């Protein structure tokens, strides 16, 4: 179980969110919503332990994530950047990521076929399209056994078929007792009955704010 207690964050003297608390049970998904610049990515980075909140704490199985022994092993975080090196092929990229996260690297070839990258296994990722690069990153959803997924805009640049595949995978993960925290502007991909929505609504800035 992941829970957040009274999280607050200010950026450039603007309060993005304050006193946000929630807890996420196994089998549930949390959908973070809010307009651009509302602090969705910042929130996800705090939940993953990449950034610090100004106030409050994140607990994994009742201990703070910084001290938790198995938090990193239980987490699959896919950020804004796909973590795909453009010089390396999809297979090489995934081999490294699997080694980093103790995932099973043997099924990489099968999964690349499954996500529609058959025939591109040995092409440098830089020669692939944005959607294909995103698919490389998302392959990890099939390789990883982590119970907690934190995904930042996973659907960016994906086509309809890939979105449908992802929707199926989300459902599978939740049915198996996994946890999911997502920001997306296409909330339909999450099963309605298992999803909690969290709206981040900081006051509208007077001038255009940076994300």
């Amino acid at each position: 179980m992941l829970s957040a207690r009274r999280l607050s964050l200010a950026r450039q003297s603007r309060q993005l969110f304050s006193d946000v608390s929630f807890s996420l049970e196994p089998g549930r998904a949390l959908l973070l919503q809010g307009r651009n610049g509302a602090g969705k990515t910042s929130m996800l980075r705090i939940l993953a332990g990449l950034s610090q909140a100004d106030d409050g704490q994140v607990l994994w199985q009742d201990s703070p994530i910084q001290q938790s022994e198995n938090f990193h092993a239980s987490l699959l975080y896919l950020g804004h950047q796909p973590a795909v090196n453009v010089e390396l092929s999809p297979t090489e990229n995934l081999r490294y990521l699997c080694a980093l996260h103790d995932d099973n690297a043997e099924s990489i070839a099968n999964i690349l076929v499954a996500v529609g990258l058959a025939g591109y296994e040995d092409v440098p990722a830089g020669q692939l399209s944005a959607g294909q690069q995103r698919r490389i990153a998302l392959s990890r959803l099939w390789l990883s056994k982590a119970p907690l997924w934190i995904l930042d805009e996973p659907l960016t640049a994906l086509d309809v078929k890939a979105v449908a595949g992802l929707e199926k995978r989300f459902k599978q993960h939740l049915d198996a007792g996994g946890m999911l925290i997502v920001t997306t502007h296409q909330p339909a991909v999450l099963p309605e009955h298992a999803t909690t929505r969290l709206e981040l609504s900081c006051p509208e800035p007077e001038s255009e704010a940076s994300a």
Partner: protein
Amino acid sequence: MTVWLETMRRETLLVMRKKSDVLNPLVFYLLVISLFPLGVGPAPETLARIAPGVIWVAVLLSVMLSLERLFRDDYRDGSLEQLLLSPHVGAGLILAKILSHWLMVCVPILILSPLAALLMGVSPPALVAMMLSLLVATPALSMIGAVGSALTVGVGRSGVLLSLLILPLFIPVLIFATAAIDAAAMSLPYLGQLALLAAFSAAAITLTPFAVLAALKISVQ
């Protein structure tokens, strides 16, 4: 252990794919060295006199040149976040990354150095001292440089800042390395200087990975 090997494998592959990252510092090194005889004049005694300093300064600058890219691509494409979120993240994993930098940048410089010494007319005993000083001191350069690289990776166009941070820390290496070569050229014992350089490297190898890890965490925030 697998993570270690996979990290080294990945870094090696990246160097093979993007050769300019390694060739740039090497070409720079040889160009600087080859310009000196043209600028100072080809008199062997003058060249041999300034050779230790010139060669070592060229080494420092070439290593500097290669440091900016150490974490840059990983920072941009998000790989660094994944590294920091790995259950294996720790000084050991960072060490693997820096070790591959040393292998890919410093070892080629080491191999080319006899050629540089030939251009500068370095005497055989001084050449031995020079090679030994490069061998024991370049790990310190990679390690200390990695701290600066990790601190500045989040800053766009960090070249100048990186030099300002790192070059002062390279100065002790420069002083003792050139002192060793000078001593060798005068047939004096130089083991003392070499031992100091080796101590410097040993301290850097054991301590800087922790600093690099902390710096990367700050940069990714």
